[in-house]
């Protein structure tokens, strides 16, 4: 029951984040919501027992492509990054960092072999060597997500 509820919440969150990202008038806000939807989709992959795909999806879309989209937004001068309030930009930055850290924790706790409620995790068997040093993996992925989102939060506050 607990896991089904989590998957349902993640699906609703994915749809809502994608809708907000597509319907937002500001491109930078769309980028933030797109980041959230990438994280949600990675978490859905992980919940259903495929942590390798979830990790790959989050690293590719929430990590690399978000930064590339941000750089293109800045290059083309579409960066309406000013949020007209320093506190609001800080709140958005903190929420984004918290979501990224929670997603990283979520992936690594669900990939420890306790996600057998859905299906057998084939990718874990194939890549079992990867999970032997879980604290280091966790530390690295949290550092990557936090640094990228800190840059994003810094850019938000720079437009004032």
């Amino acid at each position: 029951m607990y896991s089904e509820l989590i998957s349902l919440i993640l699906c609703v969150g994915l749809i809502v984040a994608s809708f907000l990202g597509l319907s937002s008038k500001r491109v930078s806000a769309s980028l933030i919501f797109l980041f959230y939807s990438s994280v949600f989709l990675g978490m859905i992959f992980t919940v259903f027992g495929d942590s390798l795909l979830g990790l790959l999806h989050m690293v590719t879309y929430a990590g690399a492509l978000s930064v590339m989209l941000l750089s293109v937004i800045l290059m083309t001068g579409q960066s309406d990054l000013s949020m007209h309030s320093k506190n609001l930009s800080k709140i958005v930055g903190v929420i984004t960092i918290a979501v990224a850290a929670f997603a990283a924790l979520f992936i690594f706790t669900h990939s420890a072999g306790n996600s057998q409620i859905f299906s057998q995790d084939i990718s874990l068997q194939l890549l079992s060597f990867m999970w032997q040093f879980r604290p280091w993996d966790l530390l690295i992925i949290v550092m990557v997500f936090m640094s990228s989102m800190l840059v994003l939060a810094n850019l938000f506050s720079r437009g004032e």
Partner: protein
Amino acid sequence: MNLITEQIILLITGMVLLLMGIYSVFTAKNLLKSVMSYQVAVFGVNLTLFSSSLSFIGMQRLLGDTFVFISIVVGAAVEVVGLAIVVAVFRKFGTLNPAEIRRLIH
């Protein structure tokens, strides 16, 4: 709630994402938003492919995961090419509005 129901939930979510993305690709008034819409459509495709492989185990499940892996990589590569085209178009025309670009071409 069994696996079939979860599979249906994932299928519906993927279909909604795909339709939202395709609709927004054609109606966006900014080329960057079109690229982002394409990304949402790719999310829908990935989710649909993933949900279709959920009911299998063993090598068949691994095959479905491989399809999702290929979809992720190809989607990311296509999006990067789209971003490069967006930058080139902006340098040539100075705007990202498709209607404005069409007017400047003619």
